[in-house]
């Protein structure tokens, strides 16, 4: 094998760089000077330039490889499928403890109280099939701001679009839809809800459906209480958050039996199907089961949904002492 001169070895890298247009001016000059007097390096240099030229040809004709279009079509189909499964989530530290907020393209899929843990792995999301959970990159930020405003009492309505894909059955979906219609600042019982659904005996099933409500607050299951007025439970846990939410909405509560109860005696009430709200002492409601009535924390709340004061008990003339 022919030995190369030290000068040729030394300049070799610069020579490659110069031939493919990646050398700085200094290196260019050194290479030019060297190849002017070295025949083998001149050949090498032009060899690299020829390769570089061919690469230019390859770059130029890089259009229209058959198969690309078909591959792109298959990709689009797979992307559509992925898009429909993707749910972006984020954990926020809320006044109700850490909550996980998740949304799909359609709307909010999940608002979950993480019961003290900030670990998204503890979330229901990790156990649902057919969902691809990805970390949020800002999609839930605005949703959370609205949630905070709600908790602070600055707004009475969450304008979230909802995606109820986690509702397990048509029955649960029906329960959730009916619950969504309970107005701000009002409470009804599980029993009343079951009766509204046309299944008056399905009280426990209604309670179970609400226990797994994927979007509490947005679907206000905190406005559903026991027939006796006791708060009974909330989101599979104790009732502290339920108390907070109801208090924010101006619903008066009193301690009762290791729990809290709605202070019905201090609330306005509405009989099923009626459009007038009454004082708790109204004679026209005496014969009705208290578990089937709707209770309002204030006249404002009742009138906000279009109700008028009862013309016999006249809550407008003898208002209750309201909490706020």
């Amino acid at each position: 094998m022919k030995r190369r001169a030290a000068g040729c070895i030394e300049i070799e890298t610069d020579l490659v760089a110069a031939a493919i247009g990646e050398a700085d001016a200094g290196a260019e000059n050194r290479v030019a000077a060297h190849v002017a007097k070295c025949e083998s390096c001149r050949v090498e240099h032009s060899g690299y330039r020829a390769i570089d030229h061919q690469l230019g040809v390859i770059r130029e004709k890089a259009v229209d490889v058959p198969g690309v279009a078909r591959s792109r079509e298959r990709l689009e189909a797979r992307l559509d499928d992925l898009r429909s499964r993707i749910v972006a989530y984020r954990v926020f530290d809320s006044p109700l403890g850490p909550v996980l907020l998740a949304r799909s393209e359609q709307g909010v899929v999940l608002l979950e109280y993480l019961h003290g843990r900030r670990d998204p792995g503890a979330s229901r999301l990790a156990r649902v099939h057919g969902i691809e959970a990805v970390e949020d990159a800002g999609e839930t930020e605005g949703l959370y701001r609205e949630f905070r405003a709600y908790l602070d009492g600055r707004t009475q309505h969450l304008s979230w679009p909802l995606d109820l894909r986690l509702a397990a059955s048509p029955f649960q979906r029906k329960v959730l839809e009916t619950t969504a219609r309970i107005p701000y600042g009002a409470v009804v019982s599980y029993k009343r809800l079951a009766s509204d659904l046309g299944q008056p005996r399905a009280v426990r099933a209604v309670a179970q459906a609400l226990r797994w409500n994927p979007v509490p607050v947005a679907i206000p299951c905190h406005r559903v209480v026991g027939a006796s007025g006791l708060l009974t439970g909330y989101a599979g846990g104790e009732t502290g958050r339920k108390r907070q939410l109801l208090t924010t909405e101006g619903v008066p509560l009193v301690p009762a039996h290791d729990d809290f109860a709605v202070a019905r005696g201090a609330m306005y009430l509405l009989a099923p199907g009626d459009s007038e709200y009454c004082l708790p002492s109204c004679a026209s409601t005496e014969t009705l089961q208290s578990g089937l009535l709707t209770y309002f924390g204030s006249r404002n709340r009742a009138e906000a949904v279009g109700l008028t004061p009862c013309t016999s008990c006249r809550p407008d003339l003898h208002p209750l002492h309201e909490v706020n």
Partner: protein
Amino acid sequence: MSDRTFEALMSEHHAEIYRYILRVTGRRHDADDLSQETFLRAFRAHRTLPPDANSRAWLFAIATNLTRNHFRSQKRRRVAYQAVVTETRETDEERPDGVTLSQEIGTAVEHVVAKLPLKQRLAFLQRKVHGLEYDAIGQSLQCSAETARAHVFQALRKVRRVLEGRELIGKEFAS
């Protein structure tokens, strides 16, 4: 990055990523699979990509990574099954559509490039065909820009050595 921007990204770079993987693997089937996988991965992550990121280089990095994993797992399979593996690069005869690979993307240079070690091939194609910066190539191969450059130069030397003495080199550019 918004979903609309992602659509634009896909329109702009899908064909290029497909061609890149086709050149690296030499197999249409792999180019199809791996380019789709590249964009599915990119879609899962694109929302967290900083607005000033070089999204083209990012796509190349994903494609490069997937391609390397693909070859690695292929190698593992071969070892595991002790299979007698024949050269599976697409030959001209295997092409169903009658278009030969050499007509399509082939030149003397590309045939040599196809035989380069994988890292050199990846670095070389990214630099010399797709014009990526050494920084980006280094990131895609998890090495420094200098090492990426060394891979490219090493590849060039091999290509030149193999082609030395052929018609291709010498006439047109010899001074």
